[in-house]
């Protein structure tokens, strides 16, 4: 047990180090530099060449971008261990942490219900559809169509139909633009939910289709398995056979759930872009467009931590629910 977790932590640590290093490198591979973009935002005209050069030099030095790369890299790790993610250049002078903290609640609010509900409903429904040929023949193709639909297209279609044609849902923002400051009033929450519905529905639909198809296939596989056939030969009722099949089929689905929960903090980039929903995905896109090294790093750091945590939780969950893993963990064999 101890050596198992020791090994796991070593692997996680190594993965974290490599992922964060790559995270640091990627923005620096981009052509252009953040300071030019930042000054463009300030509307500093490059015609006034003297002042421009001076401001440029000042900010480059302020962000430490004048140092040699290896020095920048070491400084990056140093401040990371101090919990300092830096200052956003595109949203100067807001700190990266503040930008991310402002965005994360929207991701959680949008994605956690979306993922959990589509997972739950999809699995229940998939197991249910595997039950009868009639249901299987009618519903499964629908599921396949839902999962195979390019997500952007589905999102845009939903926004167009419910937002433009029917005009019953807004198509952008987390709340109406005329609300200046979020408050904890009933009308604000209603407004929030109203804006939340379409992005949520689009995520739910796609997730639901995928989960239902996956569960259906797994259940059919489990029902053909030897232990199911044995129970059937001994006259066990279908109810018991299905219960066992479901319990075994849910194992791989749990992995999928944890993995998708792990990237919650990463936001759903496409959804947030299509519906202009201000989560981390939306911030990431803005950061990339603004060449904001520090914000990009911050967004990816969240993703890395989320994925690693999710994997760790999967490891623990599996040990708890699957006796086969429990044995494999300690290196025993049957």
């Amino acid at each position, binding site marked *: 047990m101890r050596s198992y977790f020791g090994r796991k932590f070593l692997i996680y640590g190594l993965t974290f180090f490599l992922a964060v290093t790559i995270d640091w490198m990627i923005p620096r591979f981009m052509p252009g530099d953040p300071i030019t973009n930042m000054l463009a935002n300030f509307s500093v005209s490059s015609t006034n060449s003297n002042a421009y050069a001076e401001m440029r030099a000042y900010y480059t030095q302020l962000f430490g971008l004048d140092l040699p790369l290896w020095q920048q890299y070491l400084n990056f790790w140093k401040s990371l261990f101090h919990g300092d993610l830096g200052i956003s250049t595109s949203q100067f002078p807001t700190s990266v942490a503040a930008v991310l903290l402002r965005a994360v609640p929207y991701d959680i609010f949008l994605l956690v219900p979306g993922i959990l509900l589509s997972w739950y409903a999809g699995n229940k429904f998939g197991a249910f559809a595997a039950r009868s040929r009639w249901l299987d023949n009618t519903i499964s193709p629908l599921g396949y169509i839902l999962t195979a639909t390019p997500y952007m297209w589905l999102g845009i279609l939903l926004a167009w139909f419910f937002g433009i044609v029917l005009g019953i849902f807004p198509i952008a923002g987390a709340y109406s633009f005329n609300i200046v400051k979020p408050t904890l009033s009933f009308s604000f929450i209603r407004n929030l939910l109203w804006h939340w519905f379409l992005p949520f529905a689009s995520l739910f639909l796609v997730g639901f289709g995928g989960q239902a198809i996956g569960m259906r296939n797994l259940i059919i596989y489990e029902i053909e398995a030897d*232990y199911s056939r044995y129970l059937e*030969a001994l*006259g066990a009722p279908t109810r018991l056979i299905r219960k*066992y099949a479901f*319990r*075994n089929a849910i194992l791989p689905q749990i992995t999928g759930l944890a993995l998708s929960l792990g990237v919650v903090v990463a936001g759903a980039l496409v959804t947030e872009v299509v519906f202009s929903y201000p989560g981390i995905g939306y911030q990431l896109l803005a950061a990339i467009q603004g060449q904001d090294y520090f914000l990009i790093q911050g967004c990816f750091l969240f993703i890395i931590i989320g994925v690693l945590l999710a994997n760790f939780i999967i490891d623990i969950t599996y040990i708890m629910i699957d006796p*086969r893993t429990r*044995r494999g963990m300690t290196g025993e064999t*049957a």
Partner: protein
Amino acid sequence: MTLQIENLTVYYRTLRGDVRALEDTTFQVADHEIMGLAGESGCGKTTLGHSLIILKPPMKYIKGHVALDEQELPIHDMKRMNPFRFKEISLIPQYAMNAMNPTRKIGKMTAELLGSRGVNFDAIRTELMRRLDLVNLPDSVLDMYPIELSGGMKQRMVMVLSTLLNPSLLIADEITSALDVSTQKAVAEMLVEFRNREFVNSMIVVTHDMSILYQIADSIMIMYAGQLAEKASTDVIIHSPRHPYTKLLISSLPEVGVRYTETKLQGIPGKTPLLLDPPVGCRFRDRCPISFEKCMEVPPFMEVEQDHYVACWREF
């Protein structure tokens, strides 16, 4: 008579047509009889075994009657057959190693299975313990997951489980195939012990391993290409078979004390016919050294001596 089968015919439905795996089978298994059912792969022995307990697509019931203890078995009706399964007729499957749910403790699975059949687990618990003891399994297996057991232990567990409700007929399907020789012998002896202690009344042991049958079976029935060839007591089948296929089959077995470096082991020339479109008449006709015109008709499975049945025109 425990089991009486009359004209049982079962086909497999495939896209290319019906595979005629079991044709007009008529035989009996007596009380306390352990009947070995032997034949090469694809001769219909597993089809016969399975059709008695779980006849479902792609298997297709064509005709015939099966009676167990003078009671007609509705084998063609999956639902009506259910009350008989486990209680009257049970199965030790070929896949005994994987027959238990990998994510349930064995005891819990047993309790749930019994509960679903209206049997109280606690009432039967002492008997279960006694039987586990008989097959040398510790009581603690009930608190284990199948993966924690060795192959042989799983096999024995399934044997105990399948026979727990004292069925009248037990079908043991190729249960020794996956075991090493010494375990094979132990498992085979346990089957006899189960019969002697009346856990089961009679047994059909499906196998292609004649040496196992020689040790445990009271009688042996030989099948060829979906038809019955011969049934007699074990001694008679081994020492004085009358059907040409049985003769060739027995003579092709290795004998103790003979070195096969000098004399090559004999096989039966030719191949088994495809059952999608089997030849008319006796299906062994093409490979048979003594076939004649009469073999164009299907030979009846007739009793030529007391308890000795043969399906060959030469013998009548």
